[in-house]
C-alpha cells in the first residue's frame, strides 16, 4: 500500500486551498517533508489520500522586509533563513535556532512552516519565533488572517489548523530596533532522538540598565511551546543584574511545567538545566542590545 495516492503541486495559494478543501480525508499539506515522510514511512501517520506540496508556490519561498517587519514565507528552508542578511541583522534567535536543526541536508529541505505547523513543544525554530513576537498568517477558503503565534498551538503536535482546510502561509517578525537583542540556546542529549531536551529563546529590550521589555520561550515546558509570561512580567522595568536573573530563574522554575520524557530527560534534570541555560541565553541577548 503506497503512503499516498495523489500528489499535488499547486502553484498558488488559492489552488492549494482548493485542492486541500476538495481532497477526501485524510489529505495533508507537505512542505519539506522531513517530518511527514518519516511519519508516513514508519506508520506513525496513516497513509494519505493526497499530499498537497506547497513548496512550488513562489510567494511562500521568499524572505522580504516590508515596513517594520520581516516577512518569512512558510516554505522558506532553515538554510535559507540562516543565510539571509535581513534575518541575520534582525533576529539572532531565529538564526541560532534554525542553524542548529539537523544537518545541512535536512536544513535544505525542512521549512520553518513545517517546524511551526508540526506543533511540537520544543521545535527549535518555533521556540525562536515565539520569543520574537511573531505573527502567523493562515490561508483558508475565506481568505487570509493573521494571529499571534501564541494562539496557534493547541496541544502536543496539535494546532488550530486541525481538521480545517487551512495552512500557514507566512510569518511576520518585527524588525530589530536599537537597544533590542535576542538569543537562542539549547541542550541536547547524546543518546536518542535529535530533538533538544531543553531549549530557550530570549528577546529583550533595554532602556539604559533597565529591562524595558522581554519575552522568554522555553521548550518543552508544557503541552505547547511555552512563554514564561510571569517571569517576563517580573523582569519588566527591573535593572539587569545577577540578582534580577536569580529572581527570574526562580520564577521560571515556578511557572514552567517540566515533564519527564522517558529515556530523554527527567523533569528534575530539566529543572536543573533550565536555570543556567536561561542565564546564558538572557545574558547573550542582553549583550546584543548594545
Amino acid at each position: 500500500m503506497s503512503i499516498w495516492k495523489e500528489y499535488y503541486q499547486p502553484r498558488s495559494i488559492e489552488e492549494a486551498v482548493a485542492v486541500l478543501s476538495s481532497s477526501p480525508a485524510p489529505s495533508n499539506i507537505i512542505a519539506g517533508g522531513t517530518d511527514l515522510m518519516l511519519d508516513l514511512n514508519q506508520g506513525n501517520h496513516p497513509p494519505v489520500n493526497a499530499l498537497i506540496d506547497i513548496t512550488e508556490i513562489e510567494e511562500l519561498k521568499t524572505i522580504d522586509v516590508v515596513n517594520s517587519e520581516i516577512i518569512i514565507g512558510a516554505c522558506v528552508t532553515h538554510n535559507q533563513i540562516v543565510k539571509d542578511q535581513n534575518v541575520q541583522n534582525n533576529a539572532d534567535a531565529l538564526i541560532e535556532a534554525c542553524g542548529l536543526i539537523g544537518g545541512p541536508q535536512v536544513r535544505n529541505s525542512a521549512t520553518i512552516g513545517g517546524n511551526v505547523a508540526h506543533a511540537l513543544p520544543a521545535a527549535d525554530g518555533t521556540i525562536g519565533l515565539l520569543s520574537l513576537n511573531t505573527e502567523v498568517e493562515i490561508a483558508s477558503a475565506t481568505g487570509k488572517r493573521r494571529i499571534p503565534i501564541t494562539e496557534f498551538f493547541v496541544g502536543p503536535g496539535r494546532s488550530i489548523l486541525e481538521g480545517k482546510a487551512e495552512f500557514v502561509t507566512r510569518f511576520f517578525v518585527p524588525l530589530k530596533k536599537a537597544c533590542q537583542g535576542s538569543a537562542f540556546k539549547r541542550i541536547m542529549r547524546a543518546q536518542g532522538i535529535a530533538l533538544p531536551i531543553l531549549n530557550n529563546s530570549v528577546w529583550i529590550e533595554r532602556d539604559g540598565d533597565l529591562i524595558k521589555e522581554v519575552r522568554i520561550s522555553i521548550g518543552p515546558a508544557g503541552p505547547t511551546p511555552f512563554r514564561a509570561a510571569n517571569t517576563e512580567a517580573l523582569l519588566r522595568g527591573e535593572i539587569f543584574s545577577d540578582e534580577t536573573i536569580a529572581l527570574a530563574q526562580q520564577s521560571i522554575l515556578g511557572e514552567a511545567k517540566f515533564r519527564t520524557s522517558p529515556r530523554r530527560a527527567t523533569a528534575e534534570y530539566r529543572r536543573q538545566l533550565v536555570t543556567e541555560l536561561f542565564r546564558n541565553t538572557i545574558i547573550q541577548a542582553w549583550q546584543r542590545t548594545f
Partner: protein
Amino acid sequence: MNNQTLTINVNGKTYQVPPIPGETLSDLLRNRLKLTGTKIACEESECGACTVIMNGESVLSCSTPAIKANGKFILTIEGLAKFEKGELKLHPLQEAFIKNGAVQCGFCIPGQIMTAYALLQHQPSPTSAEIQHALKDTLCRCAGYPTIERSILEAADAVRTGKPVDNDPHVPTSSGGKVVGTAQARPDSVAKVTGAAIYTDDLEFEGMVYGAVRRAMVPHAFLKSINCDKARALPGVHAVMTAEDLPGEKNHGLVIYDWPILVGVGERVRYVGDALAIVAADSTDIAREAAALIEVEFDLQPVISDPVISRHPESTSLHANGNLLKHIKVRKGDVAEGFTQADVIMEEVFHTPSTDHLFMEPECSVAVPTKEGRMEVYVGSQIPYQDRLQVARALGWPEERVRIVGQLMGGGFGGKEDIAGQIHAALLAQKLGRPVKILWDRQESLLVHPKRHATQITVRLGAKNDGTLVSAQTELYGDTGAYASLGEKVLTRATTHSAGPYLIPNVHADCYAMYTNNPPAGAFRGFGVLQSAFAIESVMDMLAEKLGMDRIELRRKNALRVGSETSTGQVLRDSVGLVECIDKVKAEMVRVSGLEEKDLFKPRPVDGAKHLVRGWGFASAFKNTGLGGGADDCSGAHVELYADGKFEVRSAAAELGQGLVTVMQLVVCEELSQEPANVKVLVMDTDLTPNGGPTTASRQTYVTGNASRLAAIAFREHVTGAMAEKFDVSPDLIRFEGSGLQIGDQKLTFPQVYQELVAMGQKTMVEYEYHAPETKPLGVKGDMHVAFSFASQAAEIEVNTNTGEVKVVQVISANDVGKAINPVGLQGQVEGGVVMGVGHTLLEDFITENGVVITDHMSRYRIPSIMHTPKITSIVVEDPTSTGPYGAKGVGEIVLIPTPPAITNALYNITGLRLHNLPVDQEVVLQHIKTGQ
C-alpha cells in the same frame, strides 16, 4: 498541478518517467534509473548515505518524494567523475578520499562525498569546524572521520588552486618490506568513490521477486495458529511458506543448531525477531504488506529478560538443555590463598549494555537458482563457507549444490557472521525456481541480528601494598539472548581476559552464558573483551587510588611480559609489547599536555569557561589473535598467474571494509616482487576461492595473511623449480622481478613465464592451506592462543559542569600489532576503533524492555558522528610475533577495547563519579556534580 510525467535531469541526462505514488527520489534513482551509487542505510533521514545534490543543494533522497525532483537537476555520485579522452578523471574529493584511505567499507562514501561536494560549492575553503558542521549527520560506522576531514581539506585546496591532490597519504609507514608496510590504496577504492561498487542490494536478476519475513514481535510465546490465506490472496504474491514447508533442516546456527528457520505451530517463540513465515512477491512493499496480513495466535509466556534471573532454578527452560548455554571456568593457582597475601582487596560489580553493530549496509541476500540445479546466494557474509553449509542443510541439499558469492560488505564488525536472509531467500527461490531478494530495512536489522552481549561482571582484585597483584576472582553473567550464535566463544574470551593484561599468580573466573528472551547476542568487534576490560580497568584505577600509587605505574608493574604466564596458563614467548604501549602513551600525554607527571590526572578548568573541566584517563588491554582454544585455525589461499602476466590471490576470507584485500595483495607483492597493480584479489566465493574460515577474532591478517604469503612462496618455488629445470640453471640464479623472471642472464616476461609453464604441462596456480600453530583448549595448560595484541590508551575528556555533558577531546592510542603490513588500513582501524569506543561509552545502548526492543530505529540508537570524534594520535608498536606474516598479529579489535575505561576513568578523575555501567548518562553526571551522589 497533478503531474502526469516526471521530468528529471540526472548527471546531465534528462529522463521522463510516469510518477509512482509513494516513490522517493532514492527509489527512482536506484530502481528505475539504475543509479545504485546512492546508498540506503536507514530510510529515516538519520545517516546521510542517500545524499544527492538537487538544484545545487544537498538533500536526503530517501525522504524526498521523487515528484519533488520534477524539473530539477540532480547530481549523484555517478556524475562526479568525468570521462576525458576516454579516461576516467576523478573529482579531487574522490582522489583525496582514495589516497588517504578514507574509503573503508565504502557504503557511506557516496553520501560523504556528495555532502562535501555541496559544502565546497558554497564554501571553497572550509575550515575544519565548517567541515564538521556540514558532515554532522552523515554517518560513517567505519568512522574514519579524521581522514575524511583531511581529505576534504586537501580536495578543497586542489579545487581552488587547480593543482592535483598531493599523493602523500600522511600515514606512518613500516620499514623492512619492499611493499609490505607501505601505504597503498585499496584495490576497490575507485569503484567505491564513483558509485560503481556493487553491494548486494544493487544486484538485479531476470525474473527476480522480493521476500519479506513475518516476525513474531512477541518475546516469548507458543505459536498457537497461523493463517496465511489473506497473504496468499494478495495480488502480486508468489509464495508464502511456513515451518510446515521446510524441506530440510529446521534450525540453523553457527555452533549449535538451535535457531528455528521458521517457528512452527505448537513451537516456542523465543524473541521478537523469530521468523514465522516468509513471503515472496513482485515488490518488497507487497511482500511486507502480505507478511502483515498473516494472522497468528500466540499463547504468551512470561518473559525472561535478565541473565541472572534466567539462571534461577525456577525459571522456565527456553531450550531443551536449560537456560545455561555454558559455564566457563578459568582456574590458575589458588585464589583463596592469594587473597590471604593481599594487603588491599577491591570488589566491584559492573554492568555493560547490549549494543548494535549498526553497520551502514543493512543485511541483504539474493538467492538465484541456476539451470544446473544449483543455488547461488549473493550476500555480504563474514563466513561464506558456513553460509554454504547452513543454506544447504536448510534446502536439504549436499553442500556442493550451493554456492555463496560474497559481495562487497558495507561493514560487518561481527554482525554478519550469523544467517540473516540467506536461508529464507534460498527457500523461496527453491520453491519458485526464480531469484529472490530479501533486503532488511534498518528496523528489521536492529530487531533481528545478534548484538553485543550485555554483561554483569564482578571483579575481586587483591594486591600487596607495593602494588603487586596477587589474586583475581571474577564472575560474569552474559546475556546470550534467545539463541547461542557465538555466545559461548564470545563469553569465553570475556572470561579469559577478565583479569586484564596482567601477571596474576592466582585467578579464578566463572562465567555463566545464559539464554534469555532478548535478541540473540553473538560476535561484535571486541568479542567479550570490551566488556571485561571496562570492569578490570576501572578496578585497576580504583586500586591505584586505594594504594596511593600512580595508576600507570601499577599497570606497568604488573603488565604481561615475555615469559609471563596468562590466566589460562599460557607462557608468552614473544611479541608482548604492552610495556612499550604504556610507556609511549605516557610520554605522549606528557608531551601534548605540557603537564608534569604528577599532575597528569588532575582536573583542569578550561580558560575562560569555568564550567568546562578537562582531565585525562588511562587504560590498557589485550586481545587474542585467532580462534585458539584448540580449534584448527586454518585458511586456504590460491596464487595464480594469468596469461596476461597478472597474478591473482584468492581466499574465501571476508572483506568487510577492514582492508584484508590490501593485506593479501601486499603480502603476495612482497613475495613475488610485484607492484600492487599487478596482483588482483578475489575473496568470498565458495566456488572460486578456498575456505578462509570465519572473519572474526582478529584472525585474518594473521591466518589468511600467512596463507597468502605461503601460497606466494610456494608459487615462487614452483616456478623457480620448473624454470631451473627448463633452462638448466641453478634455482639460486632465478629471481622474481617486477617486470618478469630473471633466469641467469635471461629475462622472461610473466606472459612468457605463463606460456612456458603451460608448454611444460606445469600448473599456473598453487594452492596452500595454512594451519596456525596448535592451541590448547581452555582448562589445559599451554598456548590457548597463537598471539595477543596489546594496547594502551589515554583519553582527555571535557565535562560541562552545568549540564553534565561529556565530550572526548583527544585520545592517544598505542597498539602493538606485531607488524603494520597495511599502514593505511591500520590507520582506519585505529580511528574507527577509538570512535566506536567513544560511541560505546557516550551514546550506544541497545535498549530492550521485557524483551521488547525500544531502540528499533537509527534515530533511537545513535552512533558517533564526526562531531563526537576526538583528535586521535596513533602510536604503532611493532613487537613481532614469530609465527605471524612478517610478525603481524590482529588489529581489528584491540583498537577499541581500552577506550571506554580510559574515558570513564577520566570522568572519575574530573568529577569523582565512578561509573559501574555504560553508557555515560549526562543526567547522572550532573546529579553527581550537584549533589555529590
